[in-house]
Every structure is written in structure tokens, then in C-alpha cells.
């Protein structure tokens, strides 16, 4: 059986998708099967006329002159332009049986008609009207079509030019059937199993490109909203980006919105759209666009980029060095240069810039400043989004928090927040049953101190992690190794990693 996997041909005797591709499709992550219904369809009334100056298309309507045209296609090939004037182009000659008349008729521009040169039946001419005119063309009402495409060619055609070819227009699109497969199904001979989308990235918008690379770091992209124009992912909605170069959003283009309420959302365009400066175009899908075109909101698809993300934050200096080496990039250690020191700053941090420079430096810190945390995405989605944005974990795997208040006698530690951003933080997941040690709390919009982030070192039945009562506290997660937090001093910075 001959099949295609992501448009690459393979020969196999297996028939299950999982056996062929190694992927078991499910409801969350389906694959798409492209099945040929018909290779092409001939348009019965549309003809392409290829001349020595270019090709133009005529759309014909049914009458006896169209029948004559269809019956004499071979005679028309090779016909020369006998004369041109400001109103017409005239190809000749062909033998006809049409009755000659000396009456004059009115013809619209771009009309295709037959005429008789010198009112002689044997000197039939194919006339193309370039503009509206009145003429004695020799045959009564002999129009049978209109030029619809390539009208500019008519102005170029001169005496002596030839018709090289006349053929029915063939339309070769939209004759495939696409099925979204959500279970391990069997496939038929000739099917194309589309399992992933491949992206080619541009270098015009480095920040937006980094944003997109972070979104697809796990090789998956979810569709949250779709219509006829685009598919949209809102996972990183709300994240600010600088305004970068905008381009035309052609079919398959990927863009990141950089302003407004929808900033940070990633779009895949399914039609050609014009450029808009609110969209930074980061690249385009070069293979597998059928996946986002066919799957439903809530479903994911595999996606990979030719440009790899280079971000060493949160890993050890040694691991960072190995990654840089594998990508052929020079590496320099700064700060804590021990092998097990954790990288907290990468310079340059943007993948495209790092790869262009061919060199990165990584600043390490003692692992005691790096803490593993768990976030309650399901229980407090809005607060988790706020926490991720403040800590920078919305766009990178390593977060950082600046210590606001810390003292050995104080039973808690407070971190800086953003009161302006917290103005839209509603009460969410309050610690009703008491505060447990190590829990991360945020003061919500109900309090004047909104936005402050805190952690307690012991349980409390009275106050939340930020010292507010429970109604003013949103619980967003917990530290997995909070004991070392007691040693952190005021004014310092701690680093966070998700478990």
C-alpha cells in the first residue's frame, strides 16, 4: 500500500495510524487525513488562450457561436493576428458557414465574437473587443464570451502574434476530502496522514518570534478560537510585546498580536489578509496547514519549527554549555561558574539574536536561590496568570521575584507585585480552611495592598500568606522546598522553576 505521511511517500503493509506514524490520535490531539476525491475538474465554459504575448482567459456562454468555437479549437491554434486597432484584436482565418450581413452592431468591451473579413464566409475571424464599440463585423450578434482574466494582454498583442494553444481551464484545488481522526483508525491506499505542522520563521520580529517559540516549546499548539479567516491561541493572551515589523498575512502566516486586549494571542491565517501594525508576522506554516484548518477549538496539533529555541534559563551551567555546543554556538560562563550553578540570565536571551551572534553568555547563581513551585492553574486561573506575568514565567521557564519584606523574626516573606495589574484580580481560591506553610498567596483587588505576593513559614488560622484576611487573599500555588526561604534577605531576588 502506498501512503503519504506529512506529504512524504511511504510503502507499507500496515493499516493502523499508530503503526504507521507512531502517534495514537485522540480527541485532544487528532490527526487529519487528506483523501483524494478527484484530481481535477474541467471547467466546461472557461478557456485559456495562450498567445505569443501571454495567456488570457475567456468565459463563454451557450449559443451556436460557442458550439462553432468548441468544434474548431484545433483550427484556432496557430491562427495569426491579422490586424489590430484601438477597439479590437482580430485572429484569422477560419472557414465558416455563417450568414453574412452588413448591419452594424454594438459590442461591449472584452466581448469575444466571430466576424467575417470582407463579408466572406471563408474568411472567418475571431475578434476580441478591447473597448465598447460599434462595428460591421459581418455576422449578426455573434458574441459568445467575455475575457475575464489577463485583459492587459490584449493591449500588447500586435499583428503577426499567434494563438499557440486553446484549452479548457482546469481547476486543481479543493478536490481533496479532509477528515479529522480522533481514534486509531485504518487508512486507505493513497491517503496522506497529516500529523504535524512545520513552521518557517522570519527574522523581522525577534520578540514576537521568541514569544511564539515559547508557546510551542512542548511541540504542541492548541486552537482556542477559529473562524474562516484565522485560528487563534489565547494561552499567552495579555502578555505585552513591542510593536515590530508587520507584513502581509498570507495564507498560512503566523502572527502575534502586539497591542490591545488581545495582545499576546497567536494567530494562524487561513486566508490572505492585509498587513496591520497590530500584528507582528513571525513566520508561516510550510507544511501541514490542513491540521489547524480542520481541527476544532479545544483540540491541539503537533507543530515544529525549523528555527530552534535557544534558552538555557533554569538549567545548570554544564547543561547550558552542552546545548550551546550542540547548536554550534560559543558559550561563556559568568556569575557563579560552577557546573551545577543554575543559569538565571542568558545574554542575548532572544533565540534569533543568539544564533545570529553565534555566542551566548550565561550568568549562574547558587542553586539555593532557585525554588521549585507548583501552581494551581485549575483553581485560580486568573491569579496564576498574574503570578506568571509578574515573575516572568509567562514567557520563560525560569521566574524571578524581588523580595519586598523579609526578616528572621517575621513569620513570612513578601515579594513585589504590580498594584496596577492587580486592579483586575478578583477574589479567587481563598484559603478558607487556614493558611498552610509554603503556600503562595496574592492580595486581590479587594484590598489596598493588591498585587503583593507572600509566603508563610508556619500554618495560620487567621491570616493569609500576605498578612491579609482570607477574603483578600488568592491562593495560587505552593513552594515545594520552602525551608530555605527563611534565609533569604530583603532586597534580594529569588528564582522559580515549575515542578
Amino acid at each position: 500500500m502506498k501512503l503519504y505521511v506529512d506529504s512524504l511517500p511511504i510503502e507499507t503493509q500496515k493499516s493502523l495510524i499508530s503503526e504507521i506514524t507512531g502517534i495514537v490520535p485522540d480527541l485532544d490531539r487528532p490527526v487529519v487525513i487528506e483523501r483524494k476525491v478527484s484530481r481535477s475538474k474541467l471547467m466546461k465554459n472557461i478557456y485559456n488562450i495562450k498567445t505569443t504575448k501571454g495567456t488570457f482567459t475567456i468565459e463563454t456562454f451557450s449559443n451556436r457561436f460557442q458550439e462553432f468555437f468548441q468544434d474548431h479549437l484545433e483550427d484556432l491554434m496557430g491562427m495569426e493576428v491579422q490586424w489590430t486597432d484601438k477597439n479590437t484584436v482580430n485572429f484569422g482565418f477560419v472557414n465558416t458557414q455563417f450568414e453574412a450581413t452588413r448591419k452594424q452592431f454594438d459590442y461591449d468591451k472584452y466581448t469575444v465574437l466571430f466576424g467575417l473579413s470582407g463579408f466572406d464566409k471563408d474568411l472567418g475571424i475571431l475578434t476580441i473587443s478591447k473597448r465598447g464599440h460599434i462595428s460591421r463585423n459581418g455576422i449578426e450578434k455573434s458574441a459568445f464570451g467575455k475575457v475575464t482574466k489577463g485583459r492587459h494582454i490584449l493591449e500588447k498583442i500586435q499583428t503577426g502574434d499567434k494563438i499557440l494553444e486553446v484549452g479548457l481551464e482546469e481547476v486543481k484545488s479543493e478536490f481533496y476530502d479532509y477528515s479529522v481522526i480522533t481514534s486509531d483508525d485504518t487508512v486507505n491506499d493513497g491517503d496522506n496522514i497529516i500529523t504535524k505542522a512545520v513552521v518557517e520563521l522570519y527574522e523581522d520580529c525577534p520578540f514576537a518570534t521568541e514569544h511564539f517559540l515559547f508557546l510551542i516549546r512542548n511541540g504542541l499548539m492548541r486552537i482556542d478560537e477559529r473562524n474562516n479567516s484565522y485560528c487563534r491561541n489565547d494561552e499567552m493572551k495579555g502578555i505585552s510585546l513591542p510593536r515590530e515589523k508587520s507584513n502581509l498575512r498570507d495564507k498560512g502566516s503566523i502572527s502575534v498580536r502586539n497591542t490591545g486586549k488581545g495582545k499576546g494571542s497567536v494567530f494562524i491565517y487561513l486566508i490572505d489578509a492585509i498587513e496591520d501594525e497590530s500584528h507582528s508576522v513571525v513566520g508561516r506554516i510550510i507544511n501541514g496547514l490542513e491540521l489547524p484548518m480542520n481541527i476544532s477549538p479545544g483540540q491541539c496539533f503537533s507543530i515544529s519549527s525549523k528555527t530552534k529555541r535557544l534558552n538555557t534559563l533554569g538549567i545548570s551551567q554544564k547543561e547550558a554549555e552542552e546545548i550551546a555546543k550542540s547548536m554550534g554556538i560559543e558559550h561563556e560562563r559568568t556569575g557563579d561558574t560552577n557546573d551545577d550553578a543554575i543559569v538565571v540570565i542568558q545574554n542575548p536571551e532572544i533565540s534569533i539574536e543568539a544564533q545570529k551572534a553565534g555566542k551566548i553568555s550565561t550568568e549562574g547563581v547558587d542553586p539555593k536561590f532557585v525554588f521549585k513551585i507548583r501552581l494551581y492553574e485549575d483553581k485560580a486561573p486568573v491569579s496564576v496568570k498574574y503570578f506568571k506575568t509578574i515573575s516572568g514565567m509567562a514567557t520563560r521557564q525560569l521566574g524571578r521575584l524581588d523580595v519586598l519584606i523579609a526578616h528572621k523574626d517575621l513569620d513570612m516573606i513578601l515579594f513585589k507585585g504590580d498594584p496596577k495589574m492587580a486592579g483586575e484580580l478578583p477574589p479567587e481560591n481563598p484559603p478558607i480552611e487556614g493558611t498552610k506553610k509554603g503556600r503562595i498567596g496574592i492580595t486581590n483587588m479587594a484590598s489596598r495592598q493588591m498585587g503583593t505576593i507572600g509566603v508563610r513559614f508556619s500554618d495560620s488560622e487567621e491570616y493569609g500568606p500576605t498578612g491579609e484576611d482570607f477574603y483578600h487573599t488568592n491562593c495560587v500555588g505552593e513552594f515545594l522546598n520552602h525551608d530555605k526561604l527563611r534565609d533569604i534577605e530583603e532586597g534580594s531576588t529569588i528564582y522559580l522553576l515549575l515542578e
Partner: protein
Amino acid sequence: MFKMHLYKGGIYRHDEFIEAIEDLGGIVMQKTPMQTEVDIVFAIPEYDMDYLKKIIKKLKGELIDIPFGDMEIAIVAPSLSRHHLPHPVCDMSEFLRRYGSTTNIVGLARGYGKTIFQISDKEKRIVSEHDAAIFSFGMFEECILLKEKELKGLTLPYVLCGGPGKIENVSNYVGNLGRKSGRMRGPEEIKTLEEVKNLLLEMVDDVREEIGKDPLIFPPVYVKRAIEQQWDLSGSLGDNPVVLHLDGLRIKKPFDEYHERISKTKVGEYELGKISTLKKSNMNDTIILTLKTKSEVGEGP
């Protein structure tokens, strides 16, 4: 193809609507905030009107079509003398403007009289620069038919108007629009104006369909935005320096002074001069820009 619409709604959350237009590949042409209300004129491809209507419903707004928003229409009167103007020519002009059209009233130099009616070649060229035309011709059938013969050669869609209710064998004719001594305010008269609008709309839809078969390289609204962003056109003739046409634009700037710089406008990856033809208008020394089709630029099939 892009179509123009008007959104009327509250100022609260109208930014969400503007974002939706930008995301769908549309263009906001004009935004007029008025205390708690806002009017937004925008052009958008037709693919996702249902999706946009859902957003409008959510925002409790109203969507109004502007069918002639991307057109310049000529209203031709036999002369500029008082028995031909202002009524009903101004009524027609005013009525079409409500549907978004930019209308120009053209008074012919020798357009009066049954047997002496003339329309010069220059006048024909001026009218042909528009997307459509309406001719207001007298009170008598015979007179209208004689004048209609002089219009041969005009290739733009046009509607003939005159006094008799109906004229046999003239499909593009609307009656009850002869000489009027007052404004057309009555319900019957407004119905007549609606008739003119509908007939014109039918004809223009055919033109749009024809353009759709061999689409323009870029929509005119996009080129208009590019020109307005890249060049300072303040101090132009008229309030609207760049007027939309179905197949291009009219730029109200002197041709000799401006055509070179306009042709250097960057549109997408092209220079405007390479994807369009610019010529001097016969009217007020403005620039007529006609966009090339995709097949002409070599992008189409």
C-alpha cells in the same frame, strides 16, 4: 472583496470591536466618538461577517451596510441652470451619500434641448473616471431616447432618470424623476430614489463580480491607507484627499507635482508605480490611480 460597513455602538468596549476588525484583516477607515456613542466606518473582507455580527451582538451595537462606500458616482445634469439644478439632482446626490458614495455633480455644457443635446468627448472622459453614473434627462420619452443615443461608448454602469414612469426597451431607466420644483421628501419620491439606488446596486454588483474573476493585486482601501500613512496630503482639494474607486483611487493632488512620489509608495513588497497606472484626471487636475490585476502583475493564475 472588501465591503464597507458602519458600526454604531457604545464607546464602552468598542476597542474589542476594532481589534476584531484588525484580526479579520479589515481596515478601520474612520472613528467618530460622540460622548457615550461611537461610529466606526470600516472595510472588511466578506468571509467572516457572521463571526463579526456575533461580536456586534455581544457589544449591543448595530451594523449598517454602506454599499457605495468604495465608489465615486457622477450625477450628470443637462446643465447647471436653475431649471435642471438643484432638484432632483441634489436629492439623488444626497440620497446616495447616505449609502456611503462620494458623489460629484457634473453639469454638461450643451446638454439641454431635444435636438441640440451634446455630450463632448471630454465630458464623457470625466464621467468615465467614475465607478457609475446617473443621468437626469428631461420629461419626455422621445427626448430621453434621443439623448440616450449620445451616450454610446460609455462603458461604466449608468442609470437614466426622467419624467415618464416607464420607457419600453430601456432597462436602466427609472421614471418619475423629471423636473421638480421642490425637495423629494414624500414617501413616493423616496421610493423612487430607492429604486435608483437598487438599480445602480444591481449593476455595480455585476462589476464587482467581474473584478472578482481577475482580482486586483491589492484592495484599494489598503492602498489608500498606505498612501495616507506615507505622504502628507493635507491641504488637498476637498475633505477627503484619497477617494476610493472600485478598481483604484482618485488622489486629489496636482498630477505633475505628486504623481512621482505617489508612485514610490510602498505597498506590501511592491512599489505602487509597478502595480498601478497613474494618469492625470480630466477633472480638477487630480490623479486617477488604477490598480493592476493579480494576473497582470504575475501573481495570479
